[in-house]
């Protein structure tokens, strides 16, 4: 069925350390994945995305890895800062054939806490 889930609900790291947030998905036909960050009182904010024809994509301090064999997605944050504290969601973009855009299927979210 359609589901995207996260392994851990909370993650606590020391400032300056690297963070890794994991996600498992079940729809093997999915070809587009996104990581969002949600701070308290705000809506989800786009961080980085990756298509299924890639296995790694890097942004500024963030890297997304995609393992299609085991249907696993991860977000790596380098040198984690207090401002990175938030809930992180992975999402799968499902686009019906011949359609525009497409709905996002979200995981439950991982709350990242950064200790100074």
């Amino acid at each position, binding site marked *: 069925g359609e589901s995207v889930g996260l392994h851990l609900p909370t993650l606590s790291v020391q400032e300056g350390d690297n963070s890794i947030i994991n996600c498992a998905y079940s729809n093997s036909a999915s070809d587009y994945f996104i990581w969002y960050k949600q701070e308290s009182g705000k809506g989800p904010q786009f961080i980085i*995305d990756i298509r299924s024809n890639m296995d790694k994509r890097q942004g500024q301090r963030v890297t997304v890895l995609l393992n299609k064999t085991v249907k696993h997605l991860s977000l790596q944050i380098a040198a984690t800062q207090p401002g990175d504290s938030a809930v992180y*969601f992975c999402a799968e973009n499902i*686009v019906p054939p011949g*359609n*525009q*855009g*497409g709905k996002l299927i*979200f995981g439950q*979210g991982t709350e990242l806490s950064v200790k100074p």
Partner: protein
Amino acid sequence: EAGVTQFPSHSVIEKGQTVTLRCDPISGHDNLYWYRRVMGKEIKFLLHFVKESKQDESGMPNNRFLAERTGGTYSTLKVQPAELEDSGVYFCASSPYRKLAGGTDTQYFGPGTRLTVL
């Protein structure tokens, strides 16, 4: 450029009452989406507009929910009558039109409307 805006930011109503949420997408974005997050659960898709047309409303919970996007600009989501289980945060997102069917674009989210039904 202004982002996606939603109104109100909070709404507290009693069971049986009606509430209307509003979303103003980013100017020029043809795709508009509604999602909601019920306490402790994941964000779930409700429906998708392309301009004024409903492209996908498979996530709408029941016929107490009515979404409109007259004129293809802002959208409203009405809940009538509201039930306790409708409490949650309702998000709106928008993305530009893609010329290639089946393409994708980043969905930009608004801050959400927190709905509490007592």
